[in-house]
């Protein structure tokens, strides 16, 4: 009983009002920042519902005079845009990239984190040094390779590299795997686990947060990537969303269809918002645990 009293001291009234004031100011600042962040999104939504004529009016109207829901329909029925097809392609590439990155990178990171061998440190530095290589530096050799393999104008060149691990993700995962206690692995070995089993049944289940982080990062990168798809894809049937959306603004010979563009943008951020909402708790935890921002 006395413990409880100690844990909850008699509340100091003056102190309480002070705290409340601080909270009010805090919330006010948060509210202002939130509004500032939401405004562009609101403008995106409003523009996506405007007709072409209303889109050009200045000063712009905040709420559209006539809600042009047909803009969203237009995206899917207009044969020249092929939005549905591009959306599906982007989803295929992004999901396959996530699968590839998560498994290959965690496998390599597991090796670096759990085993010591001559030169392993050097190898790790070598892997990390590839982080310094910008994509345009490897663009042409990789393009030649995939063209020779006959994979040009297919989604495979966008997916396959992710199955060969990414240096950034290896680094992220290795940091986390190194924090797992050795005793766990010793216990596993005593129970008769082989090394692959230690990876599959012990390391992966314990690494939920960091795997979620890797999944989200690789999904976002693949989802937003424009340069590689532009290089590899020729036919409109294979285009991904970023190409389709860049093409909407492509010509200086006409008025850019900002309303369709905004409708497409709204739909294109959906998967990322959904993914983030699902994995948010684990995602933040992953960043905190690995010390990576």
């Amino acid at each position: 009983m006395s413990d409880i009293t100690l844990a909850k001291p008699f509340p100091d009234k003056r102190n309480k009002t002070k705290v409340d004031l601080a909270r009010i100011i805090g919330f006010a600042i948060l509210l202002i920042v939130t509004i500032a962040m939401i405004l562009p999104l609101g403008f995106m939504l409003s523009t996506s519902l405007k007709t072409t004529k209303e889109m050009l009016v200045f000063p712009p109207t905040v709420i559209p005079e006539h809600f042009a829901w047909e803009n969203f329909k237009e995206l899917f029925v207009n044969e020249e845009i092929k939005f549905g097809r591009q959306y599906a392609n982007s989803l295929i590439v992004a999901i396959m990239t996530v699968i590839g990155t998560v498994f290959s990178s965690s496998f390599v990171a597991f090796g670096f984190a759990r085993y010591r061998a001559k030169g392993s440190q050097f190898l790790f530095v070598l892997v990390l040094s590839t982080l310094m290589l910008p994509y345009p530096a490897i663009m042409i050799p990789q393009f030649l390779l995939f063209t020779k393999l006959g994979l040009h104008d297919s989604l495979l060149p966008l997916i396959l590299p992710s199955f060969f691990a990414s240096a950034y993700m290896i680094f992220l995962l290795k940091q986390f795997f190194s924090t797992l206690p050795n005793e766990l692995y010793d216990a596993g070995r005593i129970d008769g686990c082989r090394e692959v089993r230690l990876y599959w049944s012990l390391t992966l289940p314990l690494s939920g947060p960091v795997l979620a982080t890797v999944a989200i990062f690789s999904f976002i990168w693949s989802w937003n990537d424009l340069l590689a798809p532009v290089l590899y894809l020729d036919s409109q049937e294979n285009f991904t969303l970023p190409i389709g959306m860049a093409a909407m603004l492509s010509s200086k010979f006409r008025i850019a269809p900002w309303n369709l563009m905004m409708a497409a943008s709204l739909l294109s951020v959906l998967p990322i918002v959904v993914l983030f909402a699902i994995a948010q708790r684990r995602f933040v935890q992953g960043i905190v645990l690995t010390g990576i921002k």
Partner: protein
Amino acid sequence: MSKKMGKTILSSALVFGLVATACSNGGSKDGDTVTITHYTIDSPDRTFVEKLIPEFEESHPNIKIKVTKAPYEQFDSKLQSSIAAKNAPDVTSHWGYGGFMEYYNKGMLMDMTPYLEDFNAADYNIPEDVMNIYKVDDKTYGIPLNSYVTVMLYNKDLFDKAGLEYPPTDYEDKSWTFDKMVDYAKKMTVDTPNLAEAQYGVDFGFGERDQRPQYFGANVYSDDTWTNGGKPSEINLTKPEVVEAYKKIYGLIWDQKVSPTPAFSKSVSGQFGDPFLSGKIGMSVVGSWSLAASSDFNFKIGVAAVPQGPNEKVRSVLYVDPLFILKDSKHPKEALEWIKFLITTEVQEKSIELSGGNPPVNQKAAEKYYSNFEGIDPEQIKQVFEGAYKYGFESYNHLISNYSQINELFINELASVENGDAKVEEALPGIQEKLKALLERVNK
């Protein structure tokens, strides 16, 4: 890891490798049929050619056409990498940032002359001087497809409100001068920080920034540029007439205050938009492609001649888009068949509608183009186009080597003048030095 697993991984890698390489033997020749790749920007006014393919393939059963595309911003990088990978398209144009001379100097273009023996430009109603734009040393490297000119568009509503007479369409009407345009502009300008009320008289977008002094009779580059493959031996940015020309151009914004600032333009029309569309600009000197969207404007528009400036010979920048055959093409004859098909009168007429208003190079088809714009008298458009051809000079970006880098330098370095942070005479010497260094580096 068990040996079994290792074997499985190794064998699946081998199988994958075999399957993947097996697909790589696809060539462009299938029996007697040849496939020609037409590479273009992904925009409806270019990709409409896909709709012309069935008709072409019907009359040329041994040729198949494949269209590949990329967004405008990525057009050049995709082209460069496909050339590097020996996977180059057969037919394309300079639709990205780079221009004809850049392609020519990089050795990307095929000399079409040997295949043009029985080709007569007159059969396709292409004027001889237009045909000559893409010749170097009497060798033809490109065949014109579309020809845009510089026009003046004006907002009839603003003219009516200010009680002004509409500007003329006849280039021979010499009373329509630059100074008169500025007078008109002053009467329409409301220069105030309040965006909702502000409006400006004229937006003078004559060519790119380095070509603009040409209108005032000053040349940024030495005359040998037009005969030596687009490599200027001298830069004249510090010569008094060039400095004066730039003072006049930017004086419209900062001294006369009749032109919109870049900040105003961006706030009413976004990063790359044309502020004229907002209805807050009286007159806009602009490429004729802006006409294509005229039916979407929220106000009545008219088209007029670019006013007479100090240079009596040049009043319009011409943008003649050609089609090239790339050097690595294995089927130049078939590629040429496709190009010839695209410039026939019938196909050029059809293309006007399919593209949403591309101006044909074929002068017979051009008659149809002039009557393509709602609310504008075809006779007026015809008069403006004919005057523009007469007083036209080809756009620098088609004629100067490594133009994309030069243009970027001008955009970046003149930004301080456009934003009112520096004076013309302060900025030009710096640009002169940087441009010299750039040209020395790229034209070695």
